[in-house]
């Protein structure tokens, strides 16, 4: 298992953002669904080693990120796209992705290829020399994805990666996710259930800091039988799970 979480908790003062989550994930695309404020971003930030948990255990890629050496090893094989990623407006697309390749310690000899591959993967090859300040929000999102995958990560954490993408780009992105999921563990946090249907083999639903459903997209859809809320079976399943959790 690339992700092994047990009793993971994160508190911000009196607020418990993540409350004793247990989760395991191996290679493949894993969807993390939940309403706003469910704790998805906090959970992903802990998995990305950007934030320390208040309690519980966390093992990533077989290592404990609590100490520096293993954490650094994890980070070499980690890709992370935050929910609201910033950027350096003066950098070009290629420079920005190269910058992250260098920070991720991609070997010098491979950087050129790695950068070009990541940029092509997000279909920005024709804009690789464009400065980031000239790009649209959707393009910036794709640059963010490119920096996350430039080191060919074994663990890829994407927080709302399709927000701001055009429908056609979203379809392409799902194909990319499926491909990445063949050799890595990809955890996608989203509130767009169609992303989960199209790309994820496993899905978990979070609410109020807890995992309230864990299974396949079909299993989640099945939970919606007889429900009215939602246009698609998985939306109805999502609504049913949340309603049950909040009741």
């Amino acid at each position: 298992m690339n992700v092994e979480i047990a009793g993971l908790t994160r508190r911000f003062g009196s607020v418990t953002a993540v409350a004793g989550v247990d989760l395991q994930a191996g290679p493949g695309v894993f969807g993390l669904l939940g309403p706003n404020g469910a704790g998805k971003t906090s959970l992903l930030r802990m998995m990305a080693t950007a934030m320390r948990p208040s309690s519980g255990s966390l093992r990533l890629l077989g290592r404990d990120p609590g100490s520096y050496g293993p954490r650094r090893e994890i980070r070499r094989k980690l890709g992370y796209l935050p929910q609201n990623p910033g950027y350096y407006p003066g950098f070009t697309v290629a420079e920005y992705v190269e910058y992250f390749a260098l920070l991720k310690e991609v070997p010098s000899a491979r950087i050129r290829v790695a950068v070009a591959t990541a940029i092509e993967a997000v279909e920005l090859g024709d804009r690789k020399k464009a400065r980031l300040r000239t790009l649209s929000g959707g393009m910036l999102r794709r640059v963010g994805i490119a920096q996350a995958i430039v080191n060919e990560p074994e663990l890829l954490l994407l927080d709302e990666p399709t927000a701001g993408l055009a429908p056609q780009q979203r379809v392409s992105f799902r194909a990319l996710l499926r491909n990445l999921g063949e050799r890595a563990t990809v955890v996608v946090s989203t509130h767009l259930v169609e992303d989960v249907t199209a790309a994820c083999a496993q899905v978990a639903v979070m609410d109020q800091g807890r995992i309230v459903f864990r299974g396949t997209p079909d299993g989640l859809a099945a939970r919606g039988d007889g429900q009215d809320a939602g246009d698609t079976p998985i939306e109805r399943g999502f609504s049913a799970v949340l309603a049950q959790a909040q009741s």
Partner: protein
Amino acid sequence: MTAATTTPASTRQPSAVAGAGLTMLRLLRLELRHNAMAWALPVAIGLFWLITYRKDMAMPPMWSLRTAGLQSGAVLDFAIPVTGAAAWMGSREVHRRVADQVTTTARARWARLLVPWAATTIWAMMAYLGCVAVLYGVTAHQAGWGGPLWWPAGVAAASLPAFSALGFVIGAFLPSRFTPPLAAIAAFFIIALSTELIHGGQSPWQVSPIVTGPWDLSPQAGVATFYPFLPDLSIAQVMLLAGFTLALLGVLALPAGSGSRTARAVAAGVTGAGLLAAGTAAGLTGTGTMDAHGMIKIPALHDAAADRPLQFTPVCSRTAIPVCLNPAYASYLPVTANALAPMLSQLAGLPGAPAKLVQVSVSFQQDAREGMIVRTDGLRRGGPQPAVYLVLPDQLAGPAMTSEQAAGQLVAAYDPRLVARVTGDGPAASPAQNAVAAALLLAVGQGKLTTDQPPTTQGRIDPGQSPGVAPGTAEYAAAERFAALPEAERRAWLLQHLTALRAGKITLAQLP
């Protein structure tokens, strides 16, 4: 979007040092391209031109003066912009909201942050070195003798990484949109207040990088002209700045998660060593004393070889009596010679007239009660031929003056002395001696003859003893009569009667 099909990029840690070095160089190249200091360069260069270059160019083309101006000016000109730019770069990850993305990369925080600091410093250093090259180039073209003093320029250069580190650390630990301007303002006050704390000649605060010599003494033209430049204070200043730089950079690696335990321990050691070096530098400066040549001598850093006078061939005027100056003062020669030429023409060839006027150094002494005391050798005999030792106004502590003011001081100080040397002076001088001396001064346009001696002050040559002749007296009338003679007639009389005059055997009535 398309699926990546190429071979996965290996994420193994580069084992070869060369690979790691190459990676850091590529990071540095990116940071150099996108560094805030590049945008702040026009400000720094503009400040340098406005504050330092113009002021330096207004000074005589002497290395000592211009280098002192360069150090104190350039530190201010560059430190403030580089602090602000570095604070911007230090806070960039937060205000650009990329902190999570970069934090979750494998590169250690301290290594990641050192690169933009280095890029900021490199931009500032390149601009500074360019400014130094221009100023030194122009000075080399204008100066008659000597060469650039590198230690003061080195102090200003050493201030750049220090203030860059200061701004960067402030930005990294207190990131906000207000941090860069506040850091720049803080740098200004740090520099300004560092000199406010200087009290007395042995203040450790003289280690401030804008101090170029004893704080009670303004920059001296005489420094490093007759005696070598003493780098003692500069060495202490570089030590202080290097210490602060190390300490501040070490702080970057101290927070938890910044690096491995070993790296953080090393950083703590570097911070401690840096603070120790800075404290030592200040302590050493506190032991410094002003030497006789207007520079700070720090016993622990002093090289005794620097106490030996410099060898030089003086430059001399073609006046009736040559005026010989240190070649560093070659640009002063025309003004000096023109000012003294009328009197030198009057006296040339007369018994007792000097063979030449030779410029000598002055000596300084710091006194707890009286402040700065400047000693001049004044009029003395010396060498195989009788010579008058000359001190120029700019060799003394005091405000800068125009060429006309300097010429006026020279005439007021040396004409009476030269005349007295020929006619004889002192309390026992006869009325005829006083009258002839006064006449010679009148003949060259010095009409104010009083017995009042102007006070000796800093920045003024100790005036020569004026002949005791007051208007309305018989001596004054005789002086006016003698001065009215044609120069050839006056000279002929002097050649014939000067020995008798000096012996007191000529009466007022015998004067023509």
